[in-house]
């Protein structure tokens, strides 16, 4: 496949997302009060995310993209505006939508099995065990079922947290810089793993990152945000099917357009 010829018209994404809106954020404003002073963090965020879509929120560190993700997840209430998921107002966290922290979010007092089974307390035992076994396999942790997190590597812990989230069969996943603490080689592997899982499970994914390459490699659409107070600067559609050839001119052009959007030159 000659990379130069790839365009959206000739090669639609292998996994066409449905057009149905899953999430709608309307007029989100967030103001924190710090030492008596009002600090605006988010300014008039309007965003629509379609069902089954993989969206990256990209912006400089500390810009407020994590705040936006926390609002979408229901952990924070916005100062103004509202988030609707499936038409329903978000008023708190919900087990249909799981938030994945950096690998530190796994519970160190539980084994791999215990972590994956954590959210399954409503299921009967046999079904719980089946689910656990299935997600242990999906993230490749076979043989580590009885292992505690502090005996696992960073990448394994991160896969464990993704498995814990997926095990409750949510329809959305929120990932907050999930690979930020990993070394660069593990990070690349994890991206591939996440895409493989996403293609297998078809969840709607909102992924926060400050890494331009990461966003361009993973997302259907990259929401580029400004520095604080964060506004949406532009939304870049990455219409290249997975697996992406990250040396293809089309990919590089899209990636560079994000670099330019953020105001960085091509050369370091």
């Amino acid at each position: 496949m000659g990379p130069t010829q790839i365009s959206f018209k000739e090669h639609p994404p292998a996994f066409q997302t449905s057009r149905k809106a899953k999430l709608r954020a309307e007029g989100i404003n967030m103001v924190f009060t710090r030492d008596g002073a009002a600090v605006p963090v988010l300014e008039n965020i309007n965003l629509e995310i379609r069902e089954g879509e993989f969206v990256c929120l990209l912006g400089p560190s500390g810009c407020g993209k994590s705040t936006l993700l926390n609002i979408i997840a229901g952990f924070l209430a916005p100062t103004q505006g509202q988030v609707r998921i499936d038409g329903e107002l978000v008023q708190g966290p919900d087990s249909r939508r799981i938030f994945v922290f950096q690998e530190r979010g796994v519970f160190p007092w539980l084994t791999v099995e215990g972590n994956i089974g954590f959210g399954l307390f409503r299921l009967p035992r046999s079904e719980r065990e089946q689910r656990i076994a299935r997600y242990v396999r999906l993230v490749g942790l076979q043989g580590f079922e009885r292992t505690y997190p502090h005996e696992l590597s960073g990448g394994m812990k991160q896969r464990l947290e993704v498995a814990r989230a997926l095990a409750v069969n949510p329809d959305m996943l929120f990932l907050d810089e999930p690979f930020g603490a990993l070394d660069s080689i593990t990070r690349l592997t994890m991206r591939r793993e996440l895409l493989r899982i996403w293609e297998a499970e078809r969840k709607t994914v909102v992924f926060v990152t400050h890494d331009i390459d990461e966003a361009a490699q993973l997302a259907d659409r990259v929401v580029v945000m400004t520095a604080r107070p964060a506004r949406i600067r532009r939304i870049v559609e990455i219409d290249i099917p997975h697996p992406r050839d990250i040396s293809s001119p089309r990919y590089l052009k899209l990636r560079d357009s994000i670099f330019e959007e953020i105001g960085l030159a091509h050369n370091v």
Partner: protein
Amino acid sequence: MTPLGHSMKWEKAFWPLAAACLFLALWAGSVKWSRTEVFPSPFDVAKGMVELAGKGLLVDYVGDSLRRVAAGYLTAAALGIPAGLFLGSRPAAMAVINPAIQILRPISPIAWIPLAIVWFGVGDLAAMFLIFLASFFQILVSAMNAVRNVPSMYRLAARNFGLSPLKLIARVVLPAALPQIVIGLRIALGVAWLVVVAAEMIAVDSGLGYLVIDSRNSGKRYDLVVAAMLLIGLTGLALDSIFRRVEKLKSVQWGFQNDA
């Protein structure tokens, strides 16, 4: 010296044993050399131990002391841990009660002895109350701080899975705080064992503390005084080794990663 981790098995047992023998030899030697009439030699102490064992007092007294510690300490844990979990997760309640706790905590349990006797009479209950006081504040404060130090991420993650507030405490807050609670329990048990000796010197007529004071008062039997001291040390060591085991359990070991 052999580098750590490469020492043979016999070496691990040999050197501490050699040091103990040397200590006993020094002890015996200096008793002989100083011709003291008061201080017993290791042999006198060993004979004293045999005498105590023969009368059945050895087992009885160790048992009595342990029973008092168990009663006071377990009550302290049964009240202190839930109270700590509650206060630790409610900053407003903690702000109200914490000053009182911080004033009561530094008061030595020994200072409570007169009040303990007024309230509970001379007897077991007074001793148990002192042990309770000695352990309670330590356990309460460590449970409180442990809960406060639970990373908020764990709570958020758990709420995300739809846990009720009670389940959240049982399945997340308690296990997350457990390593620090265990440290508090370990320190509290050490203090309780220190205090039981003092309590038994005043409030009761059995136990190792009573043995120390009674051996001196009735006939200046310093061989029995030292024998009782050794028993106090050995029992304390045994109690502490329980906690060394607990800390090795996988479900709390993650909190002690630096030791592992």
